[in-house]
């Protein structure tokens, strides 16, 4: 997913779930900020780099893909963009190494989504925004894993688009970094094939290009891990479910509903706007920001400002932990810590060690000490 959904559509979902314009705006900003909070950005504002929620291409190229580097990459991508669906999933005739990677495959309605939303309960808007980003990405990025792996993330080259009339059209890929996708000629950018299992080129949905990020597209492809089974990705339907699930999750965060259950969607909330939302989701375009922005304006009657990564930088420089970015950092550390711990306790070392503070005391990266103090403070 990209800015159109993480910012504008999240604003719409937040507003429909009952948040005020200002709250919805901050929540949407936080959701989109997950895609911008890189180590480079954090260094530029003198904040802890351990709160990074994403990595730029340059940062990834600079990463070493040794054990420590891979664990760092996995912590970031599995926690915020490719939340694992089932950390105890079984696959027949597989080695432990393969199984560990297989278990990191992202998908919606897993127990970790519930954990993510519940973790954000009672916390600030910033934490809710992060949870909404993670939740939405479980729909868009499903069937790919947030760890570099050729055997999991590679795909067959024969992608086929299913057009609205039911006919099919082959999708072609090019490898031209920076170039935009050509919808008319079905020519999309994707990462170049690399035979190295742990190459960063094999991270996430790179081999499928930006197809998972476009709401309008329906396509068929064969993921490397699915034993030659062809999978069908219906983005308009998935994005709609993501939207309805976000509304439900935010109602839970606001205390309007008692519990957040997976595989449940607040369809009623969008009943009045059904056609409008379907129209936006199915419109053949690379960026739906303008349409979502217009819809957001219709909903709240307010003007939605353009997203600006640096909007809260000055505030952070003076107020640190009491600023928007300060609270976002703490929320990001919390989410990363929770997912890493869940992966570690499933006896999977791909995201590294996780030490339980309550039984072992504090150890490890000191930036997390603030998070521990915060949690202890809350529990007391």
């Amino acid at each position: 997913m990209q800015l159109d959904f993480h910012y504008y559509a999240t604003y719409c979902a937040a507003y429909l779930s009952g948040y005020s314009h200002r709250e919805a705006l901050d929540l949407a900003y936080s959701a989109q900020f997950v895609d911008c909070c890189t180590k480079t950005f954090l260094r530029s504002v003198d904040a802890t780099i351990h709160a990074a929620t994403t990595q730029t291409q340059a940062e990834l190229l600079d990463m070493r893909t040794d054990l420590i580097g891979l664990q760092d990459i996995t912590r970031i991508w599995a926690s915020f963009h490719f939340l694992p669906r089932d950390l105890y999933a079984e696959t027949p005739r597989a080695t432990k190494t393969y199984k560990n990677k297989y278990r990191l495959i992202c998908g919606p309605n897993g127990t970790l989504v519930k954990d993510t939303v519940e973790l954000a309960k009672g916390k600030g808007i910033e934490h809710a925004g992060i949870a909404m980003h993670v939740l939405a990405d479980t729909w868009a990025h499903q069937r790919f894993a947030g760890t570099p792996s050729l055997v999991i993330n590679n795909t067959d080259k024969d992608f086929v688009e299913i057009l609205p009339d039911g006919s099919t059209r082959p999708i072609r890929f090019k490898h031209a970094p920076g170039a935009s996708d050509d919808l008319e000629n079905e020519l999309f950018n994707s990462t170049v094939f690399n035979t190295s299992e742990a190459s960063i080129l094999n991270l996430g949905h790179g081999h499928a290009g930006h197809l998972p990020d476009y709401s309008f597209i329906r396509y068929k492809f064969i993921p490397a891990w699915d034993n030659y089974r062809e999978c069908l990705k219906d983005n308009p339907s998935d994005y709609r479910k993501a939207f309805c699930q976000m509304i439900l999750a935010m109602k839970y965060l606001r205390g309007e509903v008692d519990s957040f259950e997976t595989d449940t969607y607040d369809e009623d909330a969008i009943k009045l706007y059904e056609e409008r939302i379907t129209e936006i989701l199915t419109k053949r375009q690379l960026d739906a920001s303008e349409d979502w922005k217009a819809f957001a304006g219709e909903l709240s009657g307010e003007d939605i400002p353009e997203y600006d990564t640096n909007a809260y930088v000055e505030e952070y420089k003076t107020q640190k932990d009491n600023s928007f970015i300060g609270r976002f950092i703490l929320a990001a550390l919390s989410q990363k810590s929770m997912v890493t711990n869940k992966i570690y306790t499933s006896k999977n070392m791909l995201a590294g060690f996780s030490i339980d503070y309550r039984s072992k005391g504090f150890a490890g990266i000191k930036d997390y000490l603030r998070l521990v103090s915060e949690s202890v403070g809350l529990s007391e």
Partner: protein
Amino acid sequence: MLFVKAETDSIIQDNAIEMNSPEAINFRRNSSTLSILGIGVIIFGFWSVIKIVTYVMLGIPIYNDADIAGVDGMTIELLMTVLYCMLAGDVIVRLIAGLCARAEGKNHNKRQKGFYLGFIVWEILFQIYSVYTVIMQFLSIKDDTYVETYVSLFMELSSMLILIEVYIAALSVRKYKKRMALQLTGK
């Protein structure tokens, strides 16, 4: 009111029909086998060449001196020429068979040549004979050529198994395509 929505779009449902039937999955697996092992067939074609070149370069005799006692130099040269021609022919046949198998696996209709299965059968027979001679050689080892014969046996067996697998995969792929064509024409 909150409720679970599980139904899928009708377009998607239509496209999902038969998409992952066991036959379709098997077809994809066999197509992939063809396209990967097609390269294997070509690579193993160079094995004999590499073996002969290594023999010549290291000065290892290709034939037993006792076997050719009494044969004149001209005849030996002629026999060697025939051997080199056969090797070149073998490489060409494997190259054609490998490329055709790959094209069939990737479904490149224009480049598909049905006759390559004949080449594959020929190569399998040739390979069975090779394995047989290596096994005979293996059983009659008297000196320190044990490792060399063992490697030869491993290579010849691998080559034979690849050819057999290509043959089986090609038959399976064709059977599926034929069935699909019949279904489409309604016969």
